[in-house]
């Protein structure tokens, strides 16, 4: 009998390939368990009573009628919160349930648990509440006057008295956008019978949820375990607590599992939104186009509670000038507290609003100078070794600003093709527009974004890598929100260890430490960086210990011979390693906003082609092309997916997405009237990637999730200006803005 000698195995699907995502099949066959899909035996349904007023005092709250209803197991108010009555991402300023004053339309007042959702909904309606409406504060300027601000930032760098001969001033506005992830807020809280809870929830950061739940429940951290349920998109909507504390309270009060799912209307008040902004800019330059001074005043409206507003206004301030050199920069930025719906994290996080401001200004300035808009940008483009114009930080690592602009400029414009289908014209199948009504426009914009957390935040991600008889397990608490983190973790582990079989295990909070938030474009560099570091060290440990020279799915090899089969390696070790991956430290800003506040940056350039029907103000975004600074391409298809998806959200902010408020009340809390871009609205996208490796991050990769969303909006606005000659000072652009302005022009 001959025994076959073991053969070496290689890997496929390593770094640099478009490896197929490991969770694709269950998602395609309907078997992937999202937060709204899970259930437990004996489960109750939770529902929430919400305020119909943006500002009011609660005079009377009587839950007895609800408790008396069939199927109702619990009705809770603020008095039933055993621990900390408030929660919040940065400041614990938001009551778990109303403290007697409601401060925004939709604020939770009470929660109910009942046998089914219908019973719970009926019980909510049976709760007696008497409100004394109060005058809502909805104007952010008035809020500034009254000192109702979560944070004021002053950035001061250079000479206050510096001036430039060429001056352009502008006032720019952006509306309130919603993240609108398709998956609703959802989760299931299961009591363990010993005063503790297992919570399964769709969230961007299980450990920060844990801290807030523990505080409000008045239990110890060991008593609560937060598990990831499948997440239907996030984009910032799941950083703040939604159902977490409510469902746990109800579960502990009833002793039974409690499931909570928001419908779409409730979802609109169940999470924060992108801050609307008002931006006053003055750019001063030399006749040759060198920026001399930029002065900015920004007011972003944070709504009723702090959420992450303090960090958002910081971002907006530090990126107020964009990727350009300027020695004199003065920014005064306020983020206000009003009775509008709370605002917080959304992809881009303050840099989006700022970009609309500074890029609109750069085009105005170019016009005033008689200069090509891209030449103006190239002339001032920030490069490594330059000083960041707002914070004074010397740019380390890569920052290919000029290169993304030049490569984008070199991309051929899409041909204008004859319209052969209604979708080729503005108005689509509405047949509103003939080809002769159409004007084409082209616009560019460039942006800069920080990657990972800043301003001295202790930003880390814990990772554990383990060898098993089957292959490798990568353990992380990171949230996979759809972006493909699980895929790149597999790819990195494969490429470092040489082992093909890699399972990514999303651990609950009791099994592993925090991975940090899935936000700020950070997970690839942080958790991915952690996987690279841990796997590299584990491989070294294994080869050292066994005096081997290579590793693969069969085991440890030396000189072409298998010396330790994988199953044995898993048993005798070294079989596991873990660490807390940190990025290089950042500074806390001084009182002038100065310091090395950020750890890494990415730039991107976007070019939009639009076709506008000026008489009706309808338009079609034909193409948004881009060149993005990505460090290293880990997975081409997944990266392109992030870019195309981010651009589409930029399209939304540019031309159709806005939460419409009337004295603090949301008028369009549904997908009927909060319009998301459909297939028929999607531009073509051609994307190129510049690979100048980052100084930290796996294989030199940079985060890529946010840059596509930042300058795409500004580029589309610029293209609309090109097509119409109109100033377009506000996004989203409405048909009125174009049609009525054009009409009054033509008289």
């Amino acid at each position, binding site marked *: 009998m001959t025994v076959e000698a073991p053969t070496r195995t290689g890997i496929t699907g390593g770094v640099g390939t478009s490896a197929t995502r490991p969770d694709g099949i269950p998602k*395609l066959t309907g078997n992937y368990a999202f937060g709204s899909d899970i259930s437990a035996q004996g489960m109750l349904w939770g529902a929430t009573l919400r305020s119909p007023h943006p500002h009011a005092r609660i005079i009377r709250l009587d839950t007895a009628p609800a408790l008396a209803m069939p199927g109702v197991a619990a009705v809770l108010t603020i008095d039933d919160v055993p621990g900390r009555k408030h929660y919040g991402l940065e400041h614990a300023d938001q009551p778990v349930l109303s403290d007697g004053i409601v401060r925004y339309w939709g604020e939770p007042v009470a929660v109910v648990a009942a046998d089914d959702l219908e019973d719970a909904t009926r019980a909510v309606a049976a709760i007696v509440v008497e409100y004394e409406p109060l005058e809502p504060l909805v104007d952010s300027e008035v809020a500034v006057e009254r000192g109702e601000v979560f944070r004021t930032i002053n950035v001061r760098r250079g000479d206050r008295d510096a001036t430039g001969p060429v001056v352009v001033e502008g006032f720019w506005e952006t509306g309130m956008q919603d993240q609108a992830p398709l998956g*609703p807020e959802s989760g299931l809280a299961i009591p363990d019978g010993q005063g503790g809870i297992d919570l399964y929830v769709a969230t961007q950061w299980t450990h920060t949820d844990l801290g807030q739940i523990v505080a409000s429940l008045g239990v110890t951290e060991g008593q609560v375990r937060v598990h990831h349920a499948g997440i239907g998109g996030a984009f910032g909507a799941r950083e703040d607590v939604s159902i977490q504390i409510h469902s746990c309270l109800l579960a502990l009060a009833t002793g039974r599992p409690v499931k909570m799912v928001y419908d779409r209307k409730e979802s609109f008040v169940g999470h924060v939104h992108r801050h609307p902004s008002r931006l006053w800019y003055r750019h001063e330059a030399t006749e040759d186009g060198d920026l001399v001074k930029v002065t900015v005043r920004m007011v972003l409206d944070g709504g009723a509670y702090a959420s992450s507003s303090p960090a958002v206004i910081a971002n907006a301030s530090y990126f107020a000038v964009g990727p350009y050199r300027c020695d004199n920069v003065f920014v005064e930025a306020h983020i206000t507290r009003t009775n509008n719906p709370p605002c917080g994290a959304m992809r881009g996080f303050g840099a989006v609003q700022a970009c609309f401001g500074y890029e609109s200004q750069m085009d105005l300035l170019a016009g005033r100078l008689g200069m090509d808009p891209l030449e103006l940008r190239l002339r001032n483009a920030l490069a490594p070794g330059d000083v960041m114009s707002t914070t004074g930080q010397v740019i380390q690592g890569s920052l290919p600003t000029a290169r993304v602009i030049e490569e984008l400029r070199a991309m051929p414009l899409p041909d204008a093709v004859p319209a052969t289908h209604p979708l080729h014209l503005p108005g689509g199948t509405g047949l509103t527009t003939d080809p002769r009504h159409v004007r084409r426009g082209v616009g560019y914009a460039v942006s800069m974004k920080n990657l990972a957390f800043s301003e001295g935040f202790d930003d880390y991600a814990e990772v554990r890598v383990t060898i098993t008889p089957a292959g490798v397990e990568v353990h992380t608490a990171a949230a996979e929100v759809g*972006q493909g983190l699980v895929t790149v973790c597999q790819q990195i582990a494969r490429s470092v260890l040489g082992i093909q079989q890699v399972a990514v295990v999303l651990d609950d909070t009791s099994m592993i430490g925090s991975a940090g938030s899935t936000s700020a474009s950070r997970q690839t560099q942080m958790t991915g960086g952690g996987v690279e570091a841990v796997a590299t060290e584990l491989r070294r440990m294994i080869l050292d210990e066994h005096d081997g020279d290579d590793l693969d799915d069969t085991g440890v090899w030396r000189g072409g011979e298998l010396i330790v089969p994988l199953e044995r390696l898993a048993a005798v070790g070294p079989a596991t390693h873990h660490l807390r991956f940190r990025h290089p430290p950042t500074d806390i800003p001084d009182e002038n906003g100065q310091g090395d506040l950020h750890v890494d940056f990415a730039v991107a350039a976007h070019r939009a082609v639009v076709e506008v029907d000026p008489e009706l103000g309808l338009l079609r975004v034909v193409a948004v092309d881009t060149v993005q600074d990505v460090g290293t391409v880990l997975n081409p298809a997944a990266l392109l997916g992030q870019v195309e998806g981010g651009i589409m959200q930029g399209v939304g902010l540019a031309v159709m997405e806005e939460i419409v408020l009337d004295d603090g009340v949301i008028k369009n809390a549904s997908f009927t009237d909060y319009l998301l871009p459909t297939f028929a609205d999607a531009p073509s*996208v051609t994307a190129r990637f510049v690979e100048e490796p980052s100084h930290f991050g796996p294989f030199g990769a940079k985060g890529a999730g946010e840059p596509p969303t930042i300058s795409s909006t500004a580029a589309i606005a610029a293209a609309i200006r090109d097509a119409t000659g109109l100033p377009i000072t506000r996004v989203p652009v409405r048909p009125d803005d174009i049609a009525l302005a054009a009409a009054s022009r033509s008289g």
Partner: protein
Amino acid sequence: MRITLTVNGEDHTVDVRGAESLLHMLREDLALPGSKNACEHGECGSCSVVLDGELVCACLVMAADAAGSTVRTVEGYADGDTLHPVQQALLDAGGVQCGFCTPGFVVAAAELFDENPAPTADELREALAGNVCRCTGYGAILRGLESLAAGTAGSVS
């Protein structure tokens, strides 16, 4: 009231709760949570199913009105371990991110291809305009389905 209907080839007898939607019944009573509840207003297509041969939003069908009907949901497209060609095409093209819109796209695209095996890009866009995706920007979905239409569906290069 009690109704009988056939879902993915299997007969079911269900006690309908009032005017609940077919979507609600599929998810809560028939343990078929594949059809999704992103908006429940017919505005996103995430609950797309085939009812008596027609592509519809299950959230807009009163379950009681599905008595005696035949329903096909996303769970009824793969054949054991073998994916439906639409599913395979979307997987290979990177057309799945969070996956919440995915079941709706599978059903809507499969029905389209049944009727029209070689749709143009414009026909795809119009036929799928009722399926909203928030993650992908539709690019990879279009590429996957275009390859399927061209008979070239396979791995992403």
